[in-house]
């Protein structure tokens, strides 16, 4: 803080108490001084002229001593205050995060050099007195999804009325071609608990570089996943061409190639979805879908690929839901694959579709291989087979559709249940 600036803060209650104690002590000491010297004077002499002279001298002495005391106290307090102010100012000026102090009028009262630099202002005076609407116009403050943050929703404004500290991530545009990503935290300083904020401290942490790295990583992730789809397609198709009319030995090999292609394909799909989830760009394109035929397709494909399990489909009811078909298929494949992987060889995996009240229920039942019951084995298998990613992606897709994913097990069988809201048919 520059010399001469004042903190936009009211005097705290503790200071008032200290001032009261000092004033009271002075009152007591002063009164005792007057009383004691008067008693002493009247004990020594009764001459009125002498007493008058001594009273005058006593008064002047009192004034002199008081002046000395006031000087000492004020000097000491002022020195401490100056030291504290300079220390705070040095701390504010030296930290890398941008700090804005807002006064009770909700405008910027002070900005540290980092804030001036981050906001690309000419100097701190250019920011002083700036209110939220002007700040919004100047910096186009927006949420990461691109929507503008209303000025009254800035954390530095909300914290005047809400308990803090409050934090959010926001994008600012100090120049047209400069994007600044900040993690912003605001806290209020109040003289009394629950009282109005005297000052708000808003700290802006620049995370532009980290965000850019995250974005680049997600783009690389997405790009790689896309690029892998064409080679997988070529290998899978070539294997299918070879398998047409192939002798049994060759057919075994082509089936192996195809099965591994499907595994890579699923992994790529799940990694792509994971990348979308991480970056908050997972989009759903919901439409009215008939669940039975979709599950039947997935089950048929699982049956064709699996060499160790018979995957069965039981449809107890016709069910229509509103869902994103592509994501729905991904979710069903993940659950069916997970069940087949964890299942004892030779035992069936059964997918059952039914209605439960106003929900559709897809229950995938299987008999777990005992080797998968041990936590260590299970974990290593998850990592090897990407079940962790698949499960997370599946749970996120189910949740995005307003559904639930649960798993229950008894001594012999395990059932994964997915419940999704039924389509509400409008009366024609």
């Amino acid at each position, binding site marked *: 803080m520059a010399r001469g600036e004042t903190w936009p803060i009211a005097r705290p209650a503790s200071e008032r108490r200290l001032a009261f104690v000092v004033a009271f002590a002075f009152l007591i000491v002063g009164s005792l001084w007057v009383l004691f010297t008067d008693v002493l004077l009247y004990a020594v002499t009764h001459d009125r002229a002498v007493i008058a002279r001594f009273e005058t001298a006593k008064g002047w002495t009192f004034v002199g001593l008081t002046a000395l005391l006031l000087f000492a106290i004020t000097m000491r307090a002022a020195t401490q205050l100056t030291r504290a102010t300079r220390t705070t100012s040095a701390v504010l000026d030296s930290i890398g995060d941008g700090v804005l102090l807002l006064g009770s009028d909700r405008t910027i009262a002070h900005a540290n050099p980092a804030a001036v630099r981050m906001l690309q202002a000419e100097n701190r005076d250019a920011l002083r007195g700036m209110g939220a609407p002007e700040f919004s116009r100047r910096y186009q403050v927006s949420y990461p999804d691109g929507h503008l943050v209303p000025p009254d929703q800035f954390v530095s404004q909300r914290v005047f009325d809400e308990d803090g500290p409050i934090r959010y991530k926001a994008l600012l545009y100090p120049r047209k071609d400069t994007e600044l990503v900040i993690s912003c935290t605001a806290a209020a300083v109040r003289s009394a608990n629950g009282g109005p904020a005297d000052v708000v401290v808003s700290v802006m942490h620049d995370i532009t570089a980290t965000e850019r790295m995250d974005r680049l990583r997600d783009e690389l992730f997405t790009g790689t996943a896309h690029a892998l789809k064409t080679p997988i397609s070529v290998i*899978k198709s070539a294997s299918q*061409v070879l398998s047409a009319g192939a002798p049994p030995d060759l057919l075994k090999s082509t089936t192996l190639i195809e099965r591994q292609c499907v595994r890579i394909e699923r992994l790529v799909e799940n990694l792509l979805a994971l990348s979308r989830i991480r970056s908050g760009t997972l989009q759903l*394109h919901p439409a009215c879908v008939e669940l039975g035929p979709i599950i039947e397709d997935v089950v048929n494909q699982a049956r064709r690929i699996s060499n160790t399990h018979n995957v069965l489909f039981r449809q107890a009811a016709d069910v229509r839901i509103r869902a994103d078909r592509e994501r729905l298929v991904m979710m069903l494949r993940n659950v069916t694959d997970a069940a087949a992987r964890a299942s004892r060889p030779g035992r069936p995996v059964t997918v059952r579709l039914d209605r439960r009240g106003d929900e559709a229920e897809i229950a995938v039942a299987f008999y777990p291989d005992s080797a998968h019951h041990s936590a260590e084995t299970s974990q290593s298998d998850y990592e090897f087979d990407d079940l962790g990613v698949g499960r997370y992606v599946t749970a996120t897709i189910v949740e995005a559709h307003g559904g639930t994913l649960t798993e229950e097990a008894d001594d012999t069988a395990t059932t994964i249940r997915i419940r999704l809201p039924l389509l509400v048919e409008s009366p024609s």
Partner: protein
Amino acid sequence: MNNRAADVLVVDDDPDMVAIIRIMLDDSGYQVRCARNGKEALESVAERMPAVVLLDMLMPVMDGWQCARELRARYGRRVPIVVVTAAEHAGARAEQVGCDDVLAKPFEMAELLRIVARYAPRNESGSASTRSQ
């Protein structure tokens, strides 16, 4: 419908992808033409109208989306376009540019033949034939 083998135009910049589609369609009796990008595809269609166009999306020179728009602008619905893509939710976008079908990569051979047969039906002798125009 006549007995001339149905003509399928495969538009993809990946030579391996083109080669494997060609093998699969050749074996099923289709006549396959290839183009490496949207611009070549437009020239090929101008030369002779195919029974169906299998159109990749990400290509140099002219991408699939632009090519699809051009094809629709020039020939209306006379040329069926099947989008072959690795993109997510390609169906919704394909609908916007007026494509007829979508084949998502990686695809099954049976799926490819089923979709192509929808626009270039095979005749009774088992070989693919051109549609009556």
